[in-house]
Structure formats: structure tokens, C-alpha cells
């Protein structure tokens, strides 16, 4: 949380120090900076089921493993904070750097104990930090409302860092993301707007029970400022 706040205040300072520029018009953004901050939502996902298995004392009537209890693990859906800083290389293409902070919960449902231990959900809260870079392509031919509304597509990659409860174990990885969204600018100056986006983030590494690339749906909403 502290890191997110620090990042936002740094971005705000950058805005305050910027030189005044003419209001950007539709299709005329080259050389403009854009800063934004808001909320992000990470969809939950299953980590899978795993039984606590003992080796059965095989006889002619019973073979295989003996399940002492079973576990079903899941990362719960969680909201978080995000901030971005972008630069219009051309009127339609932006490169941007971003930061996300979330606190997903690992929930492990424990059931079916052979000695009747009550079913339990064991939990821990993770701290997830993502620093990422993206390319954003604004689809100017589809702009509407006099150029105030502009749809876009985005894609990029980032560094993932996750800390378990107590911060005693760090797991790192890479994220890749693709998605799209919409920006809508307000007022005559068109310096302030909102941005909504949705997409899929592919996690490679970090905390997971599997080695494979894991797709995770994400969505976000931000207030953006152009200068």
C-alpha cells in the first residue's frame, strides 16, 4: 500500500512540474504525456485439488491410496490499486509503464478428514506487486463523440513479485498481458478523462502450484490526465 501511494505521489509531482501544453485534440496526441491511477480487479482462479494420500496396505480386496483428507486451493478475486504513466509516440501509439498492487487471498478448503477433523478453510494473504510496460494502440477510426471516446488495444509484459504473509518468502515471475478498453475525455481541454480496460494477464512464475503459464482475467478503471 505504501509503495502504491508513493508511486502515485511521484506521478502527481511529475504532472505539477510539466510545462503547459495546448489541449490535445482527437488524433493529435503525439508528444503528449498521460498519467493515470485507479483500481484494478484480479479474477480469482483455482490452484487445484490435492489429497493427503497414504499408501494403502494392499490386500486382495483393497488397492490404491488411502485419502486422509482432501484440499482444494484457490486464489480469491481481489481489488487493488494501479498507476500508469504513458507517452504518445504517435497520435495513436502510446508506450506506458505501470504499477499494480493487490492483496489476493490463498484459501485452502480442507475436507473429508478420516478422523473427523472439522472441515476448515485455511487462509493467508499475499502481497502482489507488478511493474509492467505496455504498448497501447488507439483505434482512431473508431473514435466517437467528437473524438472524446477512443477505444484501444494494449499488450505488454511485466515483473511479478509476491510476498507471503509475514514477508518471509518471496516468489517472483513474469506477466504478459493483452487486452483492450476505452478512454473518454471530459471538458473542452480534454486533459482529464476516464479509462476502462479489461484483458487477460498470463502469469509465468510467482506463487502458483503449477508450472504452466496461467491466464488470469483482469479489469481496471482509472482517472487519466494528459499534459
Amino acid at each position, binding site marked *: 500500500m505504501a509503495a502504491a501511494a508513493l508511486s502515485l505521489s511521484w506521478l502527481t509531482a511529475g504532472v505539477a512540474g510539466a510545462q503547459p501544453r495546448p489541449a490535445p485534440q482527437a488524433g493529435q496526441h503525439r508528444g503528449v504525456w498521460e498519467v493515470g491511477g485507479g483500481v484494478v480487479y484480479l479474477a480469482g482462479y483455482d*490452484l487445484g485439488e*490435492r*489429497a*493427503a*494420500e*497414504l*499408501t*494403502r*496396505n*494392499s*490386500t486382495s480386496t483393497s488397492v490404491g*491410496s*488411502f485419502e*486422509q*483428507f482432501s*484440499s482444494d*486451493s484457490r486464489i480469491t478475486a481481489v481489488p487493488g490499486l494501479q498507476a500508469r504513466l504513458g507517452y504518445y509516440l504517435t497520435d495513436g501509439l502510446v508506450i506506458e509503464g505501470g504499477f499494480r498492487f493487490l492483496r489476493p487471498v*490463498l484459501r*485452502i478448503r*480442507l475436507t473429508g*478428514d*478420516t*478422523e*473427523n*477433523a*472439522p472441515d*476448515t*478453510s*485455511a*487462509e*493467508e494473504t499475499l502481497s502482489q506487486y507488478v511493474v509492467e510496460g505496455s504498448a497501447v494502440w488507439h483505434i482512431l477510426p473508431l473514435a466517437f463523440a467528437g473524438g472524446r471516446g477512443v477505444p484501444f488495444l494494449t499488450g505488454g509484459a511485466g515483473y511479478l513479485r509476491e510476498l*507471503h*504473509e*509475514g514477508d*518471509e*518468502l518471496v516468489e517472483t515471475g513474469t506477466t504478459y498481458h493483452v487486452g483492450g478498453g476505452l478512454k473518454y475525455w471530459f471538458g473542452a481541454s480534454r486533459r482529464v478523462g476516464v479509462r476502462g480496460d479489461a484483458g487477460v494477464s498470463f502469469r509465468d512464475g510467482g*506463487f502458483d*502450484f503449477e508450472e504452466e503459464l496461467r491466464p488470469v482475467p483482469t479489469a481496471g478503471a482509472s482517472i487519466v490526465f494528459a499534459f
Partner: protein
Amino acid sequence: MRRLVAVSLAGLIAWVCVEPLAAYLKIGTRVGTRTVNLRWRDFPIRYFVTNRGVDGVTAAQFQSAVNRAFNTWHAVETAQTSSEFVGFTPAPPFDDDDMSVIGYLDRPGQNRTLAATTFLIDTVSGEIVESDIFFNTSFPWSTAESGVTGRYDVESIALHEIGHLLGLSHSALGETELVGSGRRVIAAEAVMFPIAFSPGNISDRALKADDIAGISDVYGTSAFSRASGSISGRVTKNGSGVQGAHIIAFNPRTGRLIGGFTQSADGNFVIASLDPGPHVLRVEPLDDGDVESFFDSSMTVDLDFGARFHDRVVTVPRGGDANGVELRVMPK
């Protein structure tokens, strides 16, 4: 100057503890007010095999099975152990003869003991100086590759006893049922479980996660110490410590089960040799075997509580300890 003392441990089925204390997966001996873990200091462990066969198993077949069992322990990558077969000997096991001898003995009176291990130890350092293993001729034995119905598998039982020889105590990772005056194993997930699988079963030729954790705890490489971690804490009932509780650490990522015990009245426990990452803890009373199979008979073990899970995931740090865990149990 070393003080040497001979101690004995029955291996499977029954276990009589003379001097040592059962510690977490390890065998300890009391030196003054402290407990010293038993372990070998010098490798390879040099052992002899008694030149005696029994019905269905020649001395050479017996030696081959014992050798395979030693090699299974030595193959654990996270621990450093080694042994050397010196040769056959007419000497039986259990003689105080400065030789570690493995072989058969006639013990018809010990009708619940398949095999047992004894030690000659330095009670100052905990160093194991000599260790013998006997196999009871009162039981039918086999070394057949696929096992033989009605006969106990020498390699499986040797793997358990060599675990003792290396300094490991019993594990409680198993479920049993009462049959007549004894217990039958339903399932187990440790070669070091004190009750053997049924005759003909060869499942215990392979070490389980709990066994590997135990041997790595005693003889672990420095790289393993840096790469693994532990969980420590306390089991309480109505605010007081619970003695003799069995705790299982379950890794939901790998499915590995590793056990430990509370060994004192304050209910403290440590489970070491765990993979870094989240673990689930489960605590249960020690009700799947004779208490004497795990602890000194003088120790009072609390069995009056029900099994339960801890409601927090405990994350094991790499090379460190997740401490301060409190597992609260309720009277039955």
C-alpha cells in the same frame, strides 16, 4: 573420554525404549539435562552380515536385500550417508563385539517383533559407535522381487531398521485398526511407521517424504539446509500445552506429508526439512499405535482431543523457520 552405553530399539510391531528418547523423527539420548541426537560421525558405516540363512532366504540373498536397503537411504540427494559391506561373519547380531552386524536371531518369545536395532553410543557426543540389527526367525521371510504372499519382505523391513540404525525414530504417519489384541495397518506414508505392512507387501522398499525429511534433518547437506525450512509452534488445549500430539505438515502444492510431535508438557513442536511455501497443519492425538512405540514410557501423552486443522496457511521460509504457530485443540 567417551562413555559408551548399549541401548536397544525394537524395530517393527513393538518397540521398547531403554535409554533413548524419541525426538522429532530422530532418536535422542539424554546427556545431563540436554538431549543429544544420535548420529554417525564417520562414514562409510562398515557392517557385517551374519552368515546364516533361513527358510526361503540364503545368507547371500539376505545380504543383497540389506545392501539394496542401505543404498536406498544413501540415494537420498539431500542427505549424505554411505556404508560398506565388510563381509559375512559367524557372529550373531546383538553381541557387543565392536562390529555392526545384521542377521537372523531366534527370538520365539518376541512374537510381535519382526526385527530390532541396537546401538552402542557415545553418550557425550551422541555418536553411534556400533549398531546391530536382528531379524526374527520366528517369521517367514522372502527376498523375491515381487514379494511372496504370507512372507515378510527382507528389503522393506531392512529399510525400516536401517532408518533406526541411521538415527531415526518412528513416524506416526499412518492409520491402523484394532485386530484382536494387536493393530493392523490400513495405510501409512512413512517407512518409519512402527507397524509393518502385511506379509507379501513390498511398498516399503521406497522411502516416503517423511523418511526423506527425517534423514535430511540428521545428515542434510548445507545446500539442503539453505533451501529448506521449518515450522515451529505450540499445541494447546484450554491454554495449556499438549504433550505427545502428532502434527502433520501438508504441502498442498506437492501433496507431501511430513510429521512431527510435541515432546514436552509445554506443547512445543518443530517440523523441519520442509519445502519453502505454503503448508497446512493438522493435529491429532497419537492413537494409531502404542504410545510406547514413539515415546519413553514415563512420558504422559494426552489423547483427549479431537483431530483438527489449523485455520491459517503457514508459509515456510527458505532457510528459516515459520515460528509462533499455535494449534488449539478441544477436549473430546
